[in-house]
């Protein structure tokens, strides 16, 4: 039986103090890794005979504009299909140089999700075979999920903010 405690001990044994912020929200082991170590951590989780986290369920980013120097978080969700155990880990990067190593060499499913994450957050996945926009229009010149960009379409002419619950007299 693969317990969170056991996974945590194995990770600390391998990486020491490099991994921080261990927690278990809703019973799912979560931790933070330095962004240079993301591939090493994933490779260890993938190869270890006991851990066998060989499926990347999800990969996405979060933007924390107030978190200076570590504005963008990339979140990896890994799944051990044999024991049906899931873990999650995050790496943080600055928004000035959002370079993170790609996971495509390890997980094929990372290909699509990293393109999507690049499309919406502008994370530069170093080594990705085809890093270009996937969902948005090709001529888009910004990363729409970053907080500094308004959600609303700026070309709209006939939509009254007041009617959409934003500003106006109904503050």
């Amino acid at each position, binding site marked *: 039986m693969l317990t969170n405690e056991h996974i945590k001990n194995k990770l600390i044994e391998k990486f020491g103090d490099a991994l921080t912020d261990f927690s278990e929200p809703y019973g799912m082991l979560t931790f933070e890794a330095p962004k240079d170590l993301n591939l090493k951590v994933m490779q260890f989780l993938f190869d270890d005979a006991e851990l066998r986290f060989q499926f990347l369920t999800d990969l996405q980013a979060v933007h924390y504009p107030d978190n200076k120097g570590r504005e963008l978080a990339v979140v990896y969700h890994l799944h051990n299909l044999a024991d049906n155990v899931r873990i999650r880990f995050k790496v943080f990067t600055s928004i000035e140089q959002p370079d993170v190593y790609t996971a495509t060499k390890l997980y094929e499913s990372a290909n699509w999700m990293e393109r999507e994450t690049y499309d919406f957050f502008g994370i530069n996945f170093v080594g990705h075979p085809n890093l270009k926009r996937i969902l948005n229009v090709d001529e888009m010149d910004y990363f729409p999920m970053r907080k500094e960009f308004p959600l609303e379409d700026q070309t709209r002419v006939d*939509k009254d903010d007041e009617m959409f619950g934003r500003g106006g007299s109904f503050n």
Partner: protein
Amino acid sequence: MKLLSLDFVIQRSLSNYQIEFMSRPVQYNVTPIPADINNSLQVAPMPAGHSGEGFFATKLESVVGLARANSIWPLPFATSCCGIEFMATMGSHYDLARFGSERVGFSPRQCDLLMVMGTIAKKMGPVLKQVYLQMAEPRWVIAVGACASSGGIFDTYSVLQGIDQIIPVDVYVPGCPPRPEAIIDGVIRIQELIHNEPLRRRNSEHYKALLESYGIQ
């Protein structure tokens, strides 16, 4: 006294009615009323003109308008829930065929009426425009539902804020989604437009300027 008795008669007849018709919730058409074919059939009205012994003279425009209006071939461009309402509109219950539009074509070359139903994402915009360009003149466009007309609730960076940003629209059908009756109403309004359209409209400067404003031709 007379008034009272009349009141009584009315009440009696009402209760008879209730017994006869309202107390059979699971039975239908027990005593069906035969359809009055003579009153329910409608023939397209004759255009204004001069008639006499064995002849009828009118404008070519009116005849062409009459023929076109009652044989529209719709091209459905359905992307979401409004498309489901359109399916109901085409189905036997609402039956768009009654208006001469049963021939739904999925080839732009043969169709007259582009029906855009549902949210059009910006990425879909060039596709929609190409479909419009592939249609032969005369062509009409109907925007069904809030999303096709204005972007609807999707006031967001990825959604086109109304298809009239990329192609000219003749009729807008409001609703989210509109009921089949509303879609039929939109088609009838298109029919009125077609019926009254001058033959030279598509060659006019005004129409060319309209297309020019969309960057077409």
